[in-house]
């Protein structure tokens, strides 16, 4: 491979990797924020992401509503749905069967339920395209080819990440969420409203997932399986450190860039394997993740 092509591939790999990475990062953020506060890895995160996109599509296709109505409606719908799940089902499961395993199973159940619901509406029968707010006119960055939509995706994602970061680190509500994740017993005793904080975190996670869904939907064609992308988000969270919000973001970008570079320099069929190789490398070399702090051991 001559150096010109090499350089082109490098630029394209990084540029495209940042675009898809920013979406993985958002979804990973949504997963990690729930895990940090309630110790539950939410295996329905991908389906929530998928339902948000389909909810928007539903409003567009069946009611012909304009985008400035559809987007807030879809976001609201997702937030409400997540909070409903947390309050209605997860809390009951926790009360009845406290162990974390059962909560995880509850999220798995939710993922099946959501996928089934979408299939029922018939919207999932054929891949659908989602209208884009931003044009797909090509934009050249160095030698890499992106589109205006790509730039909008990265910009919005970074803005959301910044907002989440500010929320968590510089507000009272954020402090309560972090405290709850660190020490639920103490959190209760200082009077933090546990229920409300959990509901808030789930709602926030739903919001971030929905935003990432609406960002990426115009780019990827919607099917009921589009929630698969959550696997990459989990990989990102593991690479970055499952307890670390900045880790989730870093992991997302790493996975996105790695995928693209592997696809360009190795082969297209190797792309699927990349996230899992990244996970294995992290687990062997630095199991707590890149930004995971010290490896923690806990008595079980």
């Amino acid at each position, binding site marked *: 491979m001559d150096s010109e092509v090499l350089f082109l591939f490098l630029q394209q790999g990084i540029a495209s990797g940042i675009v898809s990475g920013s979406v993985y990062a958002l979804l990973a953020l949504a997963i990690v924020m729930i895990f940090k506060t309630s110790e539950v890895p939410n295996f329905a995160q991908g389906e929530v992401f998928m339902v948000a996109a389909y909810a928007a599509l539903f409003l567009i296709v069946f009611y012909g509503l304009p985008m400035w109505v559809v987007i807030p409606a879809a976001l609201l719908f997702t937030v409400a749905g997540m909070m409903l799940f947390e309050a209605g089902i997860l809390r009951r499961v926790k009360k009845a069967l406290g162990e974390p395993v059962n909560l995880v199973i509850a999220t798995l159940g939710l993922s099946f339920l959501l996928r089934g619901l979408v299939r029922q509406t018939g919207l999932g029968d054929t891949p659908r395209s989602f209208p884009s707010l931003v044009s*797909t006119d090509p934009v050249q960055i160095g030698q890499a*080819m992106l589109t205006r939509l790509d730039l909008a995706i990265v910009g919005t994602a970074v803005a959301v990440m910044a907002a989440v970061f500010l929320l968590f680190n510089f507000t009272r509500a954020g402090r309560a969420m972090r405290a709850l994740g660190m020490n639920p017993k103490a959190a209760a005793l200082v009077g933090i409203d546990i229920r409300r904080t959990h509901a808030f975190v789930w709602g926030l996670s739903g919001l971030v997932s929905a935003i990432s869904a609406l960002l990426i939907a115009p780019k990827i064609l919607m099917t009921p399986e589009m929630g698969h992308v959550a696997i990459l988000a989990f990989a990102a969270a593991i690479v970055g450190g499952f307890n670390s919000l900045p880790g989730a973001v870093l992991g997302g970008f790493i996975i996105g860039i790695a995928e693209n570079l592997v696809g360009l320099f190795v082969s*297209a069929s190797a792309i699927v394997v990349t996230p899992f190789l990244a996970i294995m490398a992290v687990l062997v070399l630095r199991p707590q993740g890149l930004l995971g702090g010290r490896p923690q051991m806990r008595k079980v």
Partner: protein
Amino acid sequence: MGMRSVRAALLGGVLAMAGGLTALAQEVGVTPDRVRIGMFAPLSGPSAAYGQDVLNAARMWFDKINREGGIHGRQIEAVVEDDRCNANDLVAAVKKLVEQSNVFALNGGSCSAAVVAASDYVVRNRVPLVMLNASGDGALFPPNDYIYGAFSISQHAAGGSAVEFAARHFNARRIAYVNHDDAYGAWNLNAAKFQAERRGAGLNVQSISPNITDVTAPMVRLRAANPEVLVIMTYARPAALIIRKAMELGYRGPIVVAVNATADLRQMVANGGGPEAFRNVYIQEVLADLPGSARLQWVYDMYRQAYPQLASQEGRPQVYMPYGLPSAMSVTRALEAAGPELTREKFLAALQGLDFDSGVMAGPIRFGPRNRAAQQAAIYIKYDGATMERVPGSFASDWRFE
């Protein structure tokens, strides 16, 4: 009764039994006036669109033959089961047809993966199986004595034909080829490579996962090789993504699309970036001509006559309906060629020798000593989202199993 009469009675009884045994010695599923064919296809469930009308078309052909007097005085009796397009239900349907309905031969299968699952059973029990519209490469290569299929087109031939079209019609020497990294992808690539070599063209291959969401990497690689034609052998969703990405990367050359499991072309245009992205796109088609053409009118007329109520419904006939005809034609022609003393062996030998033009498909239905895949050719239709324009001629895949 005397000893003589007892002996006579015994002799009479033995002769009667011998006569009965001779009657039993006749082939399974065959009587002097009937031959029983076991049919199966997805008749319900999400994949019903791949099977219902295909099976209906096969049956209407059998009905026509029956009306004209049958074959060697025998009427074709069809017994029908629903395979729901999955391996478990299909194997169960096949077993039921063979063991309970005692059919002479099987004529069924619209879903490749499911039908291949029954091949073990069929071969072990020596029951002839003529697939309906499944491509079924997994059961056809290497060839065995009992299974015949690919009446629409084999996965191998789909790849070979697309490359033949790219090389011959566009005189292309640099062909970009995108397939999936699964078994089907390996099959179509096999024949595609053979065809490219034969035509002196070079293939630049990118094999992608069916779940892929970002096609940037493989497309950038292809683009860097500056292809003259882009051939896409994927499912509908990745195909649309590829077409879109090709346009984004500034590729304006011809794109040949051989899409698996799609019927909704208009949706693909919408998903693929609209008419602008479809300025130079050719769709692979295995029928003899455009679906609305005069040449195929008789097929749809026949359907309307046979099923007037169905034909009046929305969405009928289903897209794949005509594919049932070459399959049923093969069954009736082989029954004819096997002669009045009908056995499974004679039927299978007759199948192997078939070589005829069904009037429905792009190429002849042709088997051979080492070939169980019937149809190897396709036509190509330029489609820009609004109009369809057929490229004259048909393009066949030359690859054969060694």
